[in-house]
């Protein structure tokens, strides 16, 4: 389905669309809540992804980013069954100011489900300490980590540490990833979270991870890999072999589609169009490890 058609469909249903990746790598959309029947995807939501809240942003593209984050949180809290966790894939704040972190944490702490937070480059401005003071990683001091939950191996990668080369994983993190994956069977479904896209989505705007190919090479032997990221403030799906990529909408404001504007940056839309371009993502994991991704908007 083309992006234009996708947006149109979301506008029409006002609810969202669940996507499944078929064997041929084609995404099939189905409208949620169509015909008054509860969609099966909502019965087995494993986790929810939100991203790019940019607390502290106050331009025309969204004059109340706290309100749209809160609306996303309220929608997640109202899900019929709470997910195992909610992951925020970075840019929690706009300028990494202490009061922005405080406001963001206050809002995020109202989530019913446990929270996993990755830093984005906006959260790293000036210092990497502030983010980790507010959102200390559960294991290790580096920010990257992994855990197992119901047969799925989850991995958090941080590709915003190097302010000169973004995204970049760096040697120590790649070495850790290699060790981490060495103990996993290739049949184990993997779900990987990053902030900046791990593949070369649009390098001209910095929407790539310079050494991402090294990580992807390690992931190739696994049968089911889902890589979810933020940073680009829009839903973009992609597949390479067994690896499925999906960039998420922001909770704050959209950015232009790659190549449709001279530069990236906040895209100002009429208010109703803004609400159709931001929101949250539900992910259902089928028994075979296949991820069914549903992007819901605030419209």
């Amino acid at each position, binding site marked *: 389905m083309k992006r234009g058609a996708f947006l149109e469909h979301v506008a029409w249903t006002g609810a969202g669309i669940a996507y499944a990746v078929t064997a041929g790598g084609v995404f099939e959309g189905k409208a949620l809540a169509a015909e008054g029947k509860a969609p099966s995807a909502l019965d087995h939501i494993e986790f929810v992804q939100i991203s790019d809240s940019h607390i502290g942003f106050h331009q025309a593209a969204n004059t109340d980013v706290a309100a749209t984050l809160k609306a996303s949180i309220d929608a997640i809290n109202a899900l019929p069954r709470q997910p195992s966790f909610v992951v925020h894939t970075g840019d929690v704040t706009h300028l990494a100011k202490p009061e922005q972190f405080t406001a963001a944490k206050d809002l995020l702490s109202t989530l019913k489900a446990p929270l996993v937070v990755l830093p984005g480059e906006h959260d790293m401005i*000036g210092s990497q300490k502030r983010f980790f003071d507010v959102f200390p990683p559960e294991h290790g001091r580096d920010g990257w980590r992994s855990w197992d939950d119901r047969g799925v191996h989850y991995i958090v990668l941080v590709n915003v540490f190097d302010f000169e080369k973004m995204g970049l994983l760096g040697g120590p993190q790649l070495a850790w990833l290699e060790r981490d994956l060495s103990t996993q069977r290739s049949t184990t479904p993997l779900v990987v979270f990053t902030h900046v896209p791990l593949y070369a989505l649009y390098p001209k705007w910095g929407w790539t991870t310079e050494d991402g190919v090294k990580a992807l090479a390690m992931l190739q032997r696994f049968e089911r890999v889902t890589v979810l990221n933020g940073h680009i403030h829009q839903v973009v799906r992609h597949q390479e072999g067994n690896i499925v990529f999906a960039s998420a909408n922001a909770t704050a404001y959209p950015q232009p589609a790659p190549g449709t504007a001279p530069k990236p940056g906040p895209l100002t839309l009429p208010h109703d169009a803004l609400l159709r371009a931001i929101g949250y993502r539900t992910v259902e994991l089928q028994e075979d490890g296949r991820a069914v991704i549903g992007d819901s908007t605030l419209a």
Partner: protein
Amino acid sequence: MYQMILAVLLAAAPSTPAPVAISNFQFRPATLKIVAGQTVRFVNRDGEAHTVTATDRSFDSGGLDSGDSWTHRFTRPGRYAYICALHPFMRGTIIVLPKRRS
């Protein structure tokens, strides 16, 4: 005596900051020549946040929101490369010349 007065005058001269505009994801001018002791004023004229961050970390504006400005005084002669830490493809250079050529 005359030299001394000149030196005092130069040191005390409240030189106007040299401007660098940040607009359309570019530092303008991308290369700026100043004299040691001079101040540079960076103004973010974009709708997006940016930073002015030296690649050697010798200075860092922190986050500059739309409309924010930041001034920095360059005291040591040299060539200072800087980027926007949010958009590292944005690059600029400040060339600081010695006050007096020998």
